[in-house]
């Protein structure tokens, strides 16, 4: 196991180097002079030169890359063209917001997805199964930014309810923007978690069905073990292994998805920071944020792989 972890960590290093090269290249792939673009078309020459100087754009590319990466390792990702503040400071204020959003959404998608998947698999080809799978297919096909807008429309702007409905006058139960309070968290988490829930549900269903068809489950049933025990103690345990991988990948997709969700709900996370910075042509921030999100994703994938191996090992030992 230890050997596996070391090998897997070592495999991550070339990927990280590749990611850093790609992110570093972003600024240099821009058609034209990046300093001119950042300063604005009509900016005076001195300002452009100033940016070139600050970003070291006059050095040879390998030197620039080396400087970028050695500074990045020490936590220095340069400074914002717009505000002049450190990129690290800009990101650190928003990092946890995005991570919280992605983690809550992952929890929601795993919770909803597992329940839906198990119910669907245990009631295969029934009306319930068909309905759950249709809903999952819709969940998968819905643009999350549209779902977000619709949720704002229905549950933040809300509609008046008829007088016979107890407790509530209208459906404006949550807030349409911001992050922090319960009323602000619910809608973005549903928005971001829905597609994930659909994927987990589909994966759990197919994984459960595969496991349920195996001999040891038939043996357990033949021995007279209660159906509930068969499903939850015997089948689910093994069916969950492939689901772990999907959940890990989902976390990454959700990290990417935060860009849209944060824009819809005006949440000041890393996703919105990327968009604002792209529009302002503030490349150091774009680079820094993309680098941080990619690193986070690589790290999560590493953890998922190790967990997967660990789960498999346990089963081998059993």
């Amino acid at each position, binding site marked *: 196991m230890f050997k596996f972890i070391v090998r897997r960590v070592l495999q991550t290093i*070339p990927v990280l180097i590749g990611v850093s090269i790609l992110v570093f290249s*972003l600024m240099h792939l821009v058609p034209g002079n990046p300093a001119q673009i950042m300063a604005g078309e009509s900016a005076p020459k001195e300002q452009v030169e100033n940016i070139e100087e600050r970003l070291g754009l006059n050095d040879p590319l390998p030197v620039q890359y080396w400087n970028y990466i050695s500074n990045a390792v020490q936590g220095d990702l340069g400074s914002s063209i717009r505000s002049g503040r450190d990129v690290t400071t800009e990101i650190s204020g928003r990092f946890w917001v995005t991570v919280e959003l992605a983690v809550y959404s992952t929890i929601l998608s795993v919770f909803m997805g597992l329940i839906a998947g198990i119910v669907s698999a245990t009631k295969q080809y029934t009306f319930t199964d068909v309905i759950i799978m249709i809903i999952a297919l819709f969940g998968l*096909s819905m*643009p999350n930014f549209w779902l977000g807008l619709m949720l704002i*429309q229905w549950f933040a702007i809300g509609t008046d309810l008829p007088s016979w409905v107890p407790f509530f006058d209208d459906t404006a139960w949550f807030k349409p923007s911001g992050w922090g309070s319960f009323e602000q968290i619910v809608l973005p988490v549903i928005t971001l978690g829905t597609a994930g829930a659909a994927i987990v549900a589909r994966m759990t269903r197919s994984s459960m069905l595969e496991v349920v068809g195996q001999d040891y489950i038939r043996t357990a049933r033949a021995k007279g073990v209660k159906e509930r025990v068969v499903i939850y103690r015997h089948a689910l345990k093994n069916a969950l292994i492939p689901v772990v991988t999907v959940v890990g990948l989902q976390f990454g997709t*959700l990290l*990417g998805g935060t860009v849209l969700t944060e824009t*819809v709900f005006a949440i000041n996370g890393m996703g919105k920071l990327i968009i604002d910075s*792209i529009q302002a042509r503030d490349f150091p921030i774009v680079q820094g944020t993309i680098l941080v999100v990619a690193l986070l994703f690589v790290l999560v994938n590493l953890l998922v792989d190790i967990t997967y191996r660990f789960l498999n090992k346990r089963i081998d030992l059993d």
Partner: protein
Amino acid sequence: MGEPNVDNNTVTQEQKPLNPRVESWKNFFKKLRKNKAAMVGGIFILFFIVVAIAGPFLTTYEPDKGEIVNKLAPPSADHWFGTDHHGRDIFTRIIHGMHLTLYIGFFSVILGATVGVLLGIIAGYYGGRTDTIIMRLMDVLLAFPGILLALAIVSVLGASLNNVIIAVAIFSVPVFARIVRGSTLSVKKLEYVDAIRALGASDTRIIFKHILPNVTSPIIVQATLNIATAVLSASGLSFLGLGAQPPMPEWGAMLSDGRNYLYNAPHVAFFPGIAIVAVVLAFNILGDGLRDALDPKMKN
């Protein structure tokens, strides 16, 4: 369907032996026809293609011209889906936007699949260092979650519809490369490839004539599902203002406009979203059906 009712010894000139490739396609269509959901998905896609082609003849309004006095009008008999903030007919804009959506979906996937398939087949066929280099590059591309890579590319290339197609294509390259490499590795080991090589066939001939046709099933399945993803990603980029620019009737951009009128005219954001869901759903259903028909291993 043509059952082999003669044994090899009695094949005459008139009775040509059955072409196994034609047979397998026939078999595939037979299976696909049995999958009702896939058929529904396919029929909807055909319908969308017809709408995309015939769009301009289906409505009497212009997609870019509106009556400002009639702005943000709710759905009515005159304007089925209502009008937007410029008084433009939303139904007309959605119909006209169909070809943009399909164009983005098909082209980005064709572009991404072509590059991905080539890289995957080369990596799988040649193995060794070529394989390592290609696949590590793919790992780097896969290290960017979701649409982040597309976002990074558009940030460099600038906001436009064609740049979105390139960005979405690049982000789908590694998916195809991985799948095709895997299939190539298993096909490469088969005896018939050794036999063809022994007969003196060149690598290019082996790759394109003998390996590629045998790895098409997973490519078709993935391409169909990827069109759904491409449509979602591209509309997302346009929603963020990084894709199609106004006044193009692109659905993501229309949704973005609608965002500002959620309080007084929610229909502006509602209908473009429904259109995206319909197209993505159709491709997802067809993709699922194709997978069941073409890739029995993945069927449950």
